[in-house]
């Protein structure tokens, strides 16, 4: 039939573009497609990885001819193309998308249509990058909290960016869940009690205090903004997983996940 190794159709291109925007903190992304759906991965500084998962069910039509299809693409260009008819079209109208990829060395083709106007895009693809393997599996999770995103949005928007790190404390005892920054202005702590209405799940087995480069975590604010819930997990080495549950306009659920390495050069002196 079709000469394409990947072919997908989507009634509303915004379902894809808004998720991709949640991981858009670097120009380049690696796309990985299997029969289950599409994963778009962005990395920075060998320390942070963001993944947007778009399950096959989100698409009206999703066909992969090989076991998996991988290519690297300029994410900024892809986003400009996906939103060629604007980021917020009139109510009742939406941009339909057909996306095709012929295989290694070929461009990604996009056919977008809105109100009878058709746009055809050919975006060059590149050799996929070797991706980081965080080896973060649920069996190794030490502490886990699920919060309503509302409770974290403001906190992240107001993070003291003069602080180099964001320190996360998770503990079965007080302060339970604490976010701290140590900036020019002094320190700031944000404490969430375990019985707060924002807290959906609280499974903390041991007290852990880890620091993460604030500049690396800041981009996750984009995912946080779209999400309704966020799951915060750490493993024994202090690796952090932030999982954002995002509900699109049609009520479908997608996930964006950020992994972050702990900041290695912790100086104990500043604990307070």
């Amino acid at each position: 039939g079709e000469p394409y190794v990947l072919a997908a159709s989507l009634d509303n291109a915004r379902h894809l573009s808004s998720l991709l925007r949640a991981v858009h903190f670097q120009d380049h992304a690696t796309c990985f497609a299997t029969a289950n759906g599409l994963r778009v991965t962005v990395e920075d500084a060998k320390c942070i990885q963001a993944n947007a998962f778009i399950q096959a069910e989100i698409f009206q039509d999703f066909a992969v001819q090989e076991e998996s299809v991988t290519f690297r693409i300029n994410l900024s260009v892809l986003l400009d193309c996906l939103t060629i008819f604007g980021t917020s079209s009139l109510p009742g109208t939406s941009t339909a998308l057909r996306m095709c990829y012929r295989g290694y060395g070929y461009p990604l083709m996009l056919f977008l249509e809105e109100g009878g106007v058709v746009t055809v895009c050919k975006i060059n693809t590149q050799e996929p990058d070797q991706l980081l393997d965080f080896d973060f599996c649920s069996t190794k999770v030490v502490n886990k909290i699920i919060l309503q995103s509302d409770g974290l949005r403001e906190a992240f928007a107001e993070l003291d960016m003069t602080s180099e790190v964001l320190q996360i404390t998770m503990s079965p005892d007080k302060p339970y869940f604490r976010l701290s920054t140590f900036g020019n202005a002094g320190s700031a702590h944000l404490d969430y009690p375990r019985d707060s209405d924002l807290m959906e799940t609280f499974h903390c087995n041991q007290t852990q205090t880890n620091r993460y480069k604030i500049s690396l975590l800041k981009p996750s604010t984009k995912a946080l903004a779209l999400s309704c819930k966020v799951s915060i997990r750490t493993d024994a080495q202090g690796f952090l997983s932030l999982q954002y549950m995002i509900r699109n306009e049609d009520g479908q659920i997608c996930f964006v996940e950020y992994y972050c390495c702990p900041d290695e050069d912790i100086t104990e002196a500043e604990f307070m």
Partner: protein
Amino acid sequence: MRFRAKIVDLACLNHFSRVINTIAKLAKTCTLRLTVSKLYFILSDKVANGGVSMWCELCQGNFFDEFQMEGVAAEHNEIYLELVPENLARALKTAQSAKAVKIKLTNKHCPCLRVAVELPSLSSSSRIVTHDIPVGVIPRRLWNDFREPSVPDFDVSIYLPVLKTMKSVVERMKNLSNSIVIEANLNGEMNLKIETDLVSVTTHFKDLGNPPWSNSAQDRDLESMAEARIDIKKLQQLLAGQQVNPTKALCNIVSKRIVHFILLHEDVSLQYFIPALA
């Protein structure tokens, strides 16, 4: 030389300030030509600056309740002024609820267009705000530089699609490329194209319709495209600056030479010329 005018009607005032805002978005400085019946805002950029030109024409009667002018001489009853349209836009910005706006040519310390705004206040008398906009008076020997451009001998003339759609397409394309190819045929089809090392994008519009010009080339093949590559920023500026929703918008393409846009809104017409890139 004398000029004084007055707007009382709020709808006229808002319409006028939308026109001025559009002009201000398109030109840093421009020429205001006043005649007994019309106002013109004219920009004729030198080729070195990209060679864009603009010609905006409005009937004074549709905006002003009073309009008196007296040119340099009876046989040349016109006034040409150079001004920064942004100043005029700013003066009108806080005049949205005005009881009346008067515009007057004055010459106290320097030639100025004085915009006097009468605003309602809590006190017994109205609040008056005046804005003195410095203007340069253009001498008659230079008037010839500001003659109405003639409609070029185009290959294809076509109605534009919904400007909002065109604007968002051009805005995205601007992120990807510096120039854009605009092409159209006599079958009501128009394409916007960009192409770079990374990406090529083409947006196809159809069923746009072609205006019935009497002089248009009858023997031209309906399907054959006329195209021009232009500076994408200039096109984006035109589309982004639109505050007046035109009732009719069209463009004339002279292959590889120039694209001529005409936007009509009842009593206002705006013509904009973007030369093709080499």
